[in-house]
């Protein structure tokens, strides 16, 4: 029997919507404090050079300048994202590695003075050869960007499951395709900003971040302050999508300058600095070889990938693994080989972005599957249906499909889009395409190897039981986690949604690894659910003693205590409650015993009722090297059908319709799930058609603006048909798993396959600008 829920699986409006709709919501750049100073950075103008001298004397003399810091003041403690690749320092000591690499920071009484002072710092450089792409960085004799990494190979991965070469021998079709995307930018609307305040040995930093925890640890390690004396608070955040998941230089520099001046220091990125900081999607060059049998069975996949990593590692160690491990699934595939190389280049560091590591690989693979389906004469939907996994299957790289509604997703988009009536029957210039997607529901391990809990949560009841305050360090960055976690708390505790008040994004509220790898609904959700159950248990324990009813014979639902059998006399509890509010105008109580009354009793017996929850994934599969990246407690999947019109005379693509189905396990908030799907599709559309960070020969980003780096406008996106599939994930709270990142997966290949259907041309390079497509069509006609 399906359980009746009161709060989850609904469409309750977001808890933060009102503050955002009225403009009351404060973001980091909106914060101000008495005595606050403003910081500015001096960033390298060269892509690769030795620093011979830094002269700050002129800057120092400028009136209003309060502090100037360089590597001399900041020290050269190495930090980064993965401990195995801590390759950054706060400021460059002797070498700059990309245009934008940070050399110094200034704090001054106003932002203009800070900026002017930064421009007065003189740096003497000795230029080094700039390695601006994978080939030049890997070429013989290329200068090393980091001395310890020969060939500028920052990381490499080699994995094989089964025997790919042997398996190819038994295949009827074996084909190889090369695919390349372009470096992307997060395109979030809010540039990074922070305010740091150091007082009496305690550092507090308000920052636009996706992970207060990682920022706290990095600040602590680099600045040498105990973790317990570093507090990181996330105000409202205007989107992240990955690039805000790690500590950044302004958080470190502002903190350092606040420590030195004793005054709060604020720093805000310009839009150009957002592009220079990057930490966004890598450029991937994939070469995929796939082998299938005549009957359409996919047998083997060989994947070679080169990633243009930029000057530092950032999240790139995870990226390189994901670029291999996320393929195969959601298809049954016994043999898979992966060789990945992440190459250092003299460009801003790349990192994580929505669909981390897997987006280009997915686009390449799903387009290749489309080609193979055509070669086999099979309908692309049927071909996929023949190969997909189902709940209970395990991939060759040991991912456990504890739930997988892949068939349901494919069926839904086929039926919802009119696929069968349209495929192969559209006029020239119109096309329809399909693709599938697959993603982790949270990284199985923290980015630093550790036994830590991934999420904790605390719920504290008010004395009268009328309010449940939920404390979590989880990061609401726009995706809706504050609402989701409040819903989970209310449902698990058995109280009304409005009785839960969430305090989030603050390291003082617990441990949470943050908003990345599509993890918070499942992982933070688990912790919150456990905390709520802990509170409930405590309240029911007290009630059990009072009423002499076994604890397990009671439950709380919708604010009322439910008794399994009969109804005990609870008049004493009720009068005790009334007594605590003597002289108050009493609102009438319902017939049943309310949670409030029970909670009041619990407070009187035990003091403040506090419930705790903590979550880390149980034992996950995979004993091979790299198994930590890709293994997850659960996996989301999706399918999508896209229709396009191609203007054959100009090559311009218009996306006419998108039908998307995503298996999120169980939708805690249906509106939010749709919102994540629609936003993912929009980002996918941008990446497919427009988005590309471009550099000049000097390593400078030449389109560092939202005018020349094009994210879709309201006129570029069609309305999307969103279909929610719920496969009930056993490892997720209430059966929920991810949607935030995985939903982007099928968009690009579905667009590419539709473009082929419309034009007969296969595009192996993103973005498919009108010029690229026009040229490809023209060359094909020749």
């Amino acid at each position, binding site marked *: 029997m399906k359980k009746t829920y009161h709060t989850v699986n609904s469409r309750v409006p977001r808890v933060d919507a009102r503050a955002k709709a009225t403009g009351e919501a404060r973001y980091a750049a909106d914060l101000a404090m008495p005595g606050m100073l403003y910081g500015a950075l001096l960033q390298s103008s060269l892509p690769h050079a030795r620093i011979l001298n830094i002269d700050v004397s002129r800057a120092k003399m400028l009136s209003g300048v309060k502090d100037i810091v360089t590597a001399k003041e900041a020290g050269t403690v190495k930090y980064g994202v993965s401990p195995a690749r801590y390759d950054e320092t706060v400021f460059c000591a002797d070498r700059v590695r990309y245009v934008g690499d940070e050399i110094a920071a200034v704090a001054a009484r106003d932002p203009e003075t800070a900026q002017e002072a930064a421009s007065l710092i003189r740096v003497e450089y000795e230029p080094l050869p700039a390695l601006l792409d994978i080939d030049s960085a890997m070429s013989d004799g290329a200068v090393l960007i980091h001395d310890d990494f020969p060939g500028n190979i920052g990381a490499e991965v080699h994995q094989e499951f089964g025997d790919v070469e042997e398996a190819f021998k038994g295949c009827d079709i074996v084909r190889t395709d090369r695919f390349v995307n372009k470096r992307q930018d997060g395109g979030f609307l809010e540039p990074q900003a922070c305010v740091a305040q150091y007082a009496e040995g305690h550092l507090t930093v308000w920052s636009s971040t996706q992970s207060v925890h990682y920022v706290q640890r990095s600040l602590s390690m680099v600045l040498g302050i105990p973790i317990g004396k570093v507090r990181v608070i996330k105000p409202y955040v205007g989107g992240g999508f990955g690039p805000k998941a790690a500590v950044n230089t302004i958080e470190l520099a502002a903190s350092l300058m606040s420590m030195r001046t004793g005054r709060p220091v604020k720093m*805000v990125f310009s839009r150009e600095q957002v592009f220079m900081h990057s930490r966004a999607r890598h450029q991937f060059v994939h070469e995929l070889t796939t082998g299938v049998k005549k009957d359409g069975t996919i047998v083997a996949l060989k994947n070679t990938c080169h990633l243009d990593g930029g000057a530092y590692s950032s999240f790139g160690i995870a990226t390189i693994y994901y670029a291999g491990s996320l393929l195969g699934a959601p298809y049954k595939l016994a043999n898979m080989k992966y060789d990945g190389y992440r190459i250092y280049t003299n460009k801003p560091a790349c990192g994580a972005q929505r669909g981390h590591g897997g987006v280009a690989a997915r686009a390449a693979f799903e387009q290749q599957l489309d080609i193979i389906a055509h070669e086999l004469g099979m309908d692309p939907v049927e071909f996929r249906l023949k190969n997909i996994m189902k709940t209970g299957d395990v991939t060759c790289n040991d991912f456990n499909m504890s739930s997988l509604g892949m068939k349901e997703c494919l069926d839904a988009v086929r039926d919802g889009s009119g696929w069968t009536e349209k495929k192969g029957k559209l006029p020239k210039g119109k096309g329809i395409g399909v693709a599938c997607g697959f993603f982790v529901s949270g990284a199985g391990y923290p980015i630093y190897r550790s036994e830590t809990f991934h999420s904790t949560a605390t719920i504290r009841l008010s004395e009268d039981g009328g309010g449940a305050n939920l404390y979590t360090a989880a990061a609401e960055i726009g995706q809706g986690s504050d609402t989701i976690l409040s819903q989970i708390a209310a449902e698990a505790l058995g109280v009304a949604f409005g009785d839960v008040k969430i305090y989030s994004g603050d390291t003082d509220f617990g441990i949470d690894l943050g908003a990345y790898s599509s993890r918070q609904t499942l992982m933070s959700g688990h912790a919150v659910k456990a905390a709520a159950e802990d509170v409930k248990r405590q309240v029911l324990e007290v009630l059990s003693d009072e009423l002499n009813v076994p604890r397990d014979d009671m439950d709380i639902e919708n604010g009322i205590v439910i008794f399994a059998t009969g109804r005990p006399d609870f008049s004493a509890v009720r009068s005790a409650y009334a007594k605590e509010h003597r002289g108050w105008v009493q609102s009438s109580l319902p017939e049943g015993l309310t949670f409030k009354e029970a909670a009041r009793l619990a407070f009187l017996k035990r003091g403040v009722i506090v419930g705790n929850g903590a979550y880390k994934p149980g034992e996950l599969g995979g004993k091979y090297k790299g198994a930590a990246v890709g293994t997850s407690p659960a996996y989301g999947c999706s399918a999508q059908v896209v229709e396009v019109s191609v203007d054959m005379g*100009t090559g311009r693509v218009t996306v006419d319709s998108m039908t998307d189905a995503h298996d999120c396990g169980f939708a805690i908030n249906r509106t939010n799930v749709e919102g994540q799907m629609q936003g993912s599709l929009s980002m996918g559309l941008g990446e497919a058609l427009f988005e590309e960070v*471009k550099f000049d020969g000097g390593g400078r980003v*030449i389109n560092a603006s939202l*005018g*020349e780096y094009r994210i879709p*406008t309201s*006129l570029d996106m069609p309305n999307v048909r969103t279909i929610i599939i719920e496969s009930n994930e056993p490892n997720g709270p209430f059966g929920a798993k991810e949607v935030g990142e995985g939903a982007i997966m099928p968009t690009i290949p579905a667009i590419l396959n539709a473009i082929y259907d419309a034009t007969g041309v296969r595009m192996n390079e993103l973005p498919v*600008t009108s010029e690229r497509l026009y*040229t490809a069509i023209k060359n094909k006609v020749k």
Partner: protein
Amino acid sequence: MLFLPRFDYEEPRTLPEALDILSDLRSDTKVIAGGTDLIVNMKKGSVDPARIVSLKRLKGIRGITRKKEIVAIGSYTTAADIARSDVIARSFPVLRKAALSLGSPLIRNRATIGGNIATARPAADLPPALIALGARIKLRTKGTNRTVIPDVFFIGPGRSILGKDEIITEISLSTLPPFTGADYIKLGHRAALEIAIVAVASRITLDSPDGVIRDARIVLSAVAPTAVRALSAEGALLGEYPSDELFAKAASLAMNDCSPVSDIRGGADYRRDMVRALTIRTLANAYREACGQGVGL
């Protein structure tokens, strides 16, 4: 954050006062109208004037008026004003289309026709339509008064014949003869917030609905240092009966009437091909319009 450099600001109340201020050539002065170009360039540091003179309080340079056969557009008239104007929609729908393709609604509420001309951007949206329509630009200095056609106004990217002491006051258009049609097509990456990769404005006037082409203008944008007329293409149309073949021939000629470069928005070869594609389309649409009742009647 991006900051504006320091500058002095003047806000004259009358045109003579404004011209008087500008006549002092000692100071590096810029005129601001909508500011959507100037302020961006100042923030990026490519322009750093010592003084800015705003036209905002000047009377008589904003709005669209029609006197008999002449429609006058004040230079401070915004792209949104043009897009909203019934007079423009009736008499010069091609100008409305061009105005609506400029930037975004927010930009169109500030950007003025005078500014769109004065900044002399090679991909500006209004000049191609204005050239196609035979517009005249009125310029004033403290002591002089001249009227020029946009064909000669532009010299190169960001460069024009506009004197440092000179202000554009008005753009005027004569209503079009019968059996005239025009079209403007802008090719951009996105559907809004775009600068043209290539844009083409075409106008043709027929002798009669089934007659020969008596007059034609084809203006190519973003494929030369300024918007340029495709003179050889225009020549091929004159005295001929309209047909798809004729338009295709003209469009091929237009490809050599321009000098596109490869830049951040597109390659030279692609641009040349797009000149052909958009010329054919604008001519076909202009012809369709000319065969109907014509515009400007």
